[in-house]
């Protein structure tokens, strides 16, 4: 309990410091920090549309950060979440467009299952290469992201093209209901939230979660107690892939309504960032995802409502993120405690 409180305290303090350093930077470039932060907050929270936009960009990050963290728990550094989002998306689109013989609710479920399956199989490739041939999953997944992008890009400008000016597919026949219109936040948010809570539960409470953690922290011990590190490594990579695929499916069925070329650009890497900042802690990752989503839509809002150019907004956001990665406040506290003790 104490540890959790301390961690939250640490995160809050870090954010405060990030704000302070960001403010210095804003001053340095000759803007008013209060105004800029005001615009940022308004950009993220002012009115239905802004809140909706924030929540809409929060939704995929929730899943991609969770996807990265799940793989990390088993000791995998899965850069490939982005590719999994793409492939999940295209599968959902394919099923949603073509399998209209299914009744809508069933079709919806099949879209999710299909997206998750294909994405999981995509993740299976680097997992098997790593588990059986010791090929670095970092290398393979970085490369595979481009492959996924080009495959989907090929499909939506060729065989699956809607024949319009953009590279996109026909609209899918089932949609996740949107709310807070006109923003594109949709029922996928709840699906993602439930999924993440479920994943936290799986990792902390179930036998599978225990095995994943064992393999991630000490594979040699895992093998000895009868847990197959290879099997678990592959399973969690596939799970990670499935989560990425789910994110892709939600984006297609909930946000766009069709597969749009290159729609997932940055979703994977931002999720990875959210997870890495909190050192792959599954409970904190959603909060960090939310923080990043707020930053993102806040930055868009800042561009929309003030004269601050986008490059400055982006610079401030980046400074924020860099500061947020550092645990320095926590260290300050530690040192202080020590000094007091030694006196």
């Amino acid at each position, binding site marked *: 309990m104490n540890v959790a409180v301390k961690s939250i305290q640490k995160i809050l303090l870090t954010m405060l410091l990030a704000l302070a350093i960001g403010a210095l930077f804003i001053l340095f470039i000759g803007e008013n920090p209060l105004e800029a932060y005001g615009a940022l907050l308004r950009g993220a929270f002012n009115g239905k549309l802004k809140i909706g936009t924030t929540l809409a960009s929060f939704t995929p990050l929730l899943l991609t950060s969770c996807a990265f963290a799940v793989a990390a728990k088993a000791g995998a550094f899965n850069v490939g979440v982005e590719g999994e989002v793409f492939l999940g998306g295209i599968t959902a689109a394919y099923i949603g467009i073509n399998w209209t013989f299914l009744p809508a609710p069933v079709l919806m479920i099949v879209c999710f299952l299909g997206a998750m399956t294909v994405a999981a199989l995509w993740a299976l490739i680097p997992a098997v290469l790593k588990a059986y041939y010791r090929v670095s999953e970092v290398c393979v997944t970085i490369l595979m992201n481009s492959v996924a992008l080009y495959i989907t890009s090929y499909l939506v400008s060729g065989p699956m093209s809607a024949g319009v000016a953009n590279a996109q597919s026909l609209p899918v026949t089932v949609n996740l209901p949107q709310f807070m219109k006109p923003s594109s936040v949709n029922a996928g948010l709840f699906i993602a939230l439930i999924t993440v809570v479920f994943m936290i539960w799986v990792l902390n*409470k*179930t036998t599978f979660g*225990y095995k994943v*953690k064992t393999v991630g*922290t*000490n594979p*040699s*011990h895992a093998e*000895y107690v009868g847990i197959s590190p290879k099997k678990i490594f592959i399973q969690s990579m596939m799970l990670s892939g499935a989560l990425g695929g789910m994110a892709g499916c939600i984006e297609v069925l909930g946000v766009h309504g069709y597969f749009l070329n290159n729609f997932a650009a940055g979703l994977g890497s931002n999720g990875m960032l959210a997870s890495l900042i909190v050192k792959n802690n599954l409970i904190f990752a959603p909060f960090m995802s939310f923080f990043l989503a707020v930053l993102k839509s806040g930055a868009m809002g800042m561009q929309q409502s003030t004269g601050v150019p986008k490059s400055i907004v982006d610079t401030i956001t980046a400074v924020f993120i860099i500061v947020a990665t550092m645990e320095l406040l926590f260290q300050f506290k530690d040192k202080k405690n020590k000094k007091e003790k030694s006196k």
Partner: protein
Amino acid sequence: MSEYVIEMKDIVKSFGNVHAVRNGQFTLKKGEIHSLIGENGAGKSTMMKLLYGMYPIDDGSIRIHGDHIPSISPKIAIEKGIGMVHQEFMLVNELTVLENIILGFEPRHGITIDFDKARKTVEQYINQYGMDIQLGKKINQISVGEAQRVEIIKTLTRGANVIILDEPTAVLTPQETKQLFVILQNLRKDGKSLVFISHKLNEVMEISDRISVMRQGNYIGSVSKEETSPAELAKMMIGREVFLNIEKTQTKPGEKVLEVKDVWVSGEKEISKIRGVSLDVRAGEIVGIAGIDGNGQSELIEAIAGLRQVEKGSVLLDGKELGGLSPKQIRKAGLSHIPEDRNTRGLNRSMSIKENLIAVQVGEAPFCKGVVRDDKETLEYAKQLSEVFDIRPRDPEISTQSLSGGNAQKVVVAREVSIGGKLLVASQPTRGVDIGAIESIRKILQEVKAKGMGVLLVSADLEEILSLSDRIVVMHEGRITGRLKAEDANEDNLGLLMMGGTASAEERGSTT
């Protein structure tokens, strides 16, 4: 000039909430061998690491050759002539022996390393102390004993006149220990001062001039060897009397629980490290495997446990062929296994005592309901085991990271003997463990046998083999070189067999 080379006074050091050293005192005279003893977690290693500058001290003072040193780093320590052979070897696996020895003090040719000069210097020391070291090999290709010698050479080439050896004998065979002692005596003759940390009181009595005792981070006292006895030392360490020589329980061996038939196994670097080993273990007996480390015992055990592939031959557990089974299936078939390396195999140091205690039963009733783990059941079970096996501290929720060696080993032992298999394979069960814990672990092995489990015991400690086993097999270079009944075995004939000699005909005849 002070009488002491080293003076450590009123040392205090804590790690977070762990008070590793509360009141540390230590002095070292020139040309003496000074032993530092104490239970696991008494703070011996921490004291010496502080001297070597691995961590800053919280309080107290350190003098080297009379000079007060306010803050030490390994670099300064080395410059002051202090060398340390760590409990866990500080050798980089991927580098060669020579590279490891010169690391940090490389003779140079401009910016490149002058390997010729390095080799010459190192060989000089090797010859001077008559050590057997192959400089060109990588660390992961050499034996533990050799690694130990590499560590000593490392300190010597850096010009150490104070050498700290942290439990150097824990991983050595009696022969290797003897060799090491010769080296240590020679070093003392050359005027070096030595700190020797060990749990083995007979060794301490053999080699030291003075002995200091620590308990729970506190300095208890120093005695000179002439004025003390192992019993007194044990009492100082633990605070009570200890009895190591356990009386063997007599049981009637039952059915064969383990049959190893002509088994061949590959090693890490070579094929067929084990070549044609056959042995069996019956219910209710302890079979000891004696042998110098690295002669295939580890590979044999791993093969039995399914952690290493068997090239040919067969292993039967309770009549069931194990070939092709996974470690999990082998455990289901009735294997319990105390591995030789508790840190990487035996325990998951990032998990709690509770979780480690049920590690082999995860996903089995009553520790789960469906796919969900049952925390309450687990805690209940863990509390019970902690009580029975005297695991300290008594809080199963804490991480195994902070456990002392002895208690960590007790967690492994508790887990393995409580799952109630048919065969217990115990590999080096008391290595690096303090005498209090040794006492209780040995007792547990006797109890297990009495309950009718078969026990296969591997130990480099001949005294342990002799005091526990009903039958003894000796391994040398991947083969069995002798099989003896316990009553026929003694340190001498076992030692001979371990070196590859052959036993006399009658001893051979008495094998089962």
